[in-house]
């Protein structure tokens, strides 16, 4: 079911957290709300499921206005960051709870619990209590409980934040598999760009209570609208160079390095402040804009190495390349950036 946030605002007392946020999630879509901690992701999620009352605007599920409905009447399943399992109930009782409060017949409850347990692969854990489960198992139980009564909408608040790296990888694909199998409309709140990119159809990237860009992961990665978005996506992250516009080119601050601006960039006025963004994979031996520097650090990543290159002005560029043995810290290198991939941002951070 489609979700529409229409000019939604939320403040706590005098603190305005969200103002006039509009966002539409298509039916069956999985959307990531991505942003740094404290930007208002959970607040938005809690407003959608009705835990927080909105201060302004509307929330629609399909064509139904749920703005003033209590959470009980909204048909949402929520997976909380802490899982919020009921410690005194067994796994089966936890999953059955949403049906039990709806007074569904016991044998039907049993059938549905078994079915959903099979979906999330926890059939053999039904008799245990949450304290006897590992983090990943608790995660699956929370997911099963959120899905068992077939809600219109599934909301996940940092569902992987409490898992270790290996489990996180496993649960990423599991959650996506379950979402695709059930075809439920889902919103995933996360501060981890890898999660957002790997699990979701589209990403809404948030900063300070506002959605900065809404796009598919690929589109957002290759075509970020602002320096913030470019900086947020990608691992290892993009490197920024600060300078000024000069004669249709870019003059790196505190140095005599001059770089041409990529083709297609609107020529900024002379003297205006610019920021160049260069991703690690777009900087190396094969580019067309030479930028000389000195190796400051080599990070071995196994299949690839990440090189930190310090430029004359002290700023840093990153380059990721297949492992090679001919480069050591302190070496002078003259690598180049791929001009077509270099991103230019104006003083306000917007892409030019």
């Amino acid at each position, binding site marked *: 079911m489609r979700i529409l946030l229409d000019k939604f605002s939320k403040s706590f007392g005098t603190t305005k957290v969200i103002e006039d946020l509009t966002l539409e999630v298509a039916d069956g879509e999985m959307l990531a709300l991505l942003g740094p901690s404290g930007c208002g992701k959970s607040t938005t999620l809690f407003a959608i499921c009705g835990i927080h009352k909105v201060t302004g605007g509307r929330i629609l599920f399909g064509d139904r206005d749920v703005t003033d409905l209590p959470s009980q009447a909204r048909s949402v399943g929520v997976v909380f960051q802490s899982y919020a399992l*009921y410690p005194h109930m067994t796994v089966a009782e936890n999953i059955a709870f949403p049906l039990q409060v709806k007074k569904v017949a016991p044998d039907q409850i049993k059938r549905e619990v078994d079915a959903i347990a099979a979906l999330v692969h926890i059939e053999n854990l039904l008799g245990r209590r949450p304290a006897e489960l590992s983090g990943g198992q608790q995660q699956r139980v929370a997911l099963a409980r959120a899905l068992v009564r077939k809600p219109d909408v599934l909301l996940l608040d940092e569902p992987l934040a409490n898992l270790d790296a290996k489990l996180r990888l496993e649960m990423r694909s599991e959650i996506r598999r379950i979402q695709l199998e059930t075809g439920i409309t889902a919103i995933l709140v996360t501060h981890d760009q890898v999660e957002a990119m790997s699990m979701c159809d589209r990403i809404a990237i948030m900063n300070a209570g506002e959605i900065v860009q809404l796009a598919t992961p690929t589109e957002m990665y290759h075509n970020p609208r602002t320096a913030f978005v470019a900086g947020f996506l990608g691992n290892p992250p993009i490197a920024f160079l600060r300078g000024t516009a000069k004669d249709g080119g870019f003059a790196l601050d505190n140095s005599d390095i001059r770089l041409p601006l990529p083709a297609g960039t609107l020529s900024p006025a002379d003297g205006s402040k610019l920021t160049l963004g260069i991703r690690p994979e777009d900087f190396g031996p094969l580019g067309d804009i030479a930028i000389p520097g000195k190796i400051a650090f080599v990070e071995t990543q196994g299949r690839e190495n990440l090189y930190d290159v310090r430029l004359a002005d002290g700023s840093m560029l990153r380059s990721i390349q297949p492992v090679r043995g001919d480069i050591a810290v302190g070496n002078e290198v003259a690598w180049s950036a791929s001009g077509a991939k270099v991103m230019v941002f104006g003083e306000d951070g917007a892409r030019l």
Partner: protein
Amino acid sequence: MNSSRSLGLMLLTPAIVLVVLFFLVPVALTAVFSFTNMSTATGITGGAYQIGPSSLQRLGDSYGFPELAERLSQPSYVIDERGLTALESAGVDASAITEMRTHLGEVFPTRREAERMIKGLDARPSTREVKQISEQFNRSLLDTRYESEGDLLAGLDALGVEVTPAERDAVAASSYSGWTWTTDNFRRMVSTPDTLRTLINTVFYVAIVLVLFNTGYAMFLAITTYYMPETTGGIFRSIWLLPRITPPVIYVLMWKWLAWDTGFISMFLGQFGVAPKNWMLDSSTNAWVFVILINGFVGASMGMLVFSSALRAIPKSQFYASEVDGASRWQQIRYIILPQMRWPILFVTCYQTLSLLASFDLILLSTEGGPGGATEVWSLMTYHTALNNYAGNLEYGYGTALSLVLVVIGVTLSLIYLRVFNYNALVAKPLIEQ
């Protein structure tokens, strides 16, 4: 013994010392004293042997020697050397003494008979002198204090009373004024009808106050104030703490003022033509209502605090989760809150049962067990028996026997509670990683 074990023991020592000093020793002493007949009359140190009206009564009634008691109660007069010497030093006429010597060895069972003989002397003593002389030969055991059983029996022999060994023992036992070992306390407890009535009162009182106020109402307050806005809830909780922090005397005085025949209730109902009366002591039903309210309002505050903090310890996210799961507020209370309140409920129930069983201060201050013993509970009965009663004879032995019953009930109840609340099921099995 390794060092961590001894460190543990060292850290435990203060607790062990406290348990021994303030629990085990008092309980042991209670058990010991409950098998004595200590009272104001016997004192708590040893006693002496002295035949008197009450000991003779006991000899007749409890030991079954009424004739012997009768015999011992009679004064008896023996004309002996000791008496004659005493007459000399009292300055009695020498001729009278010489004449008395002729009667040496004679025994008179009563004063009258002895005095008849003295009156018949040739020396013709005056009535005053007759009395003076007879007094010197009074060899009755009555009201003579003997420090040991041997002295008493020697006195008995000197008197020439023929007694069987059983009678000797009975005389010694009945005339002993100090405390003795006995199981009579428990026999008395079982056979006195008041005991059963007090027991029923106690069960009623503890059960009603515990269920209605100390847990029920306390839980109600905790949950309602939890759902209130922070400050409102805080204000309500503070109000309910007031009875607890008010000094008991003042607190009960306020209730009395409410209930007196010139108090608020009487004044208010007077407007509608109801005759003023003491509403608290008017009938046993009223007395119970007041006793329960007075104790309940004090007792609810502790449960309220314990339950409130336990509620706060439940993560907020469980409340959010249950709401989005569709649970109404009542279902939230029923399925999420209450099941997680088992330990606090157990704790409050246990603690409050014991404190209700043991404390009687508010009842003492308000109804004093009245009217007519209607609100007398076990601990108050113990107090009345051992520490403060109308007759003035404080029966420490019987009192401790009564309080020993409280100790036994308390320990038994604690064990039952642990059982009912299924301690083992509450301790989760260790985490098993798959």
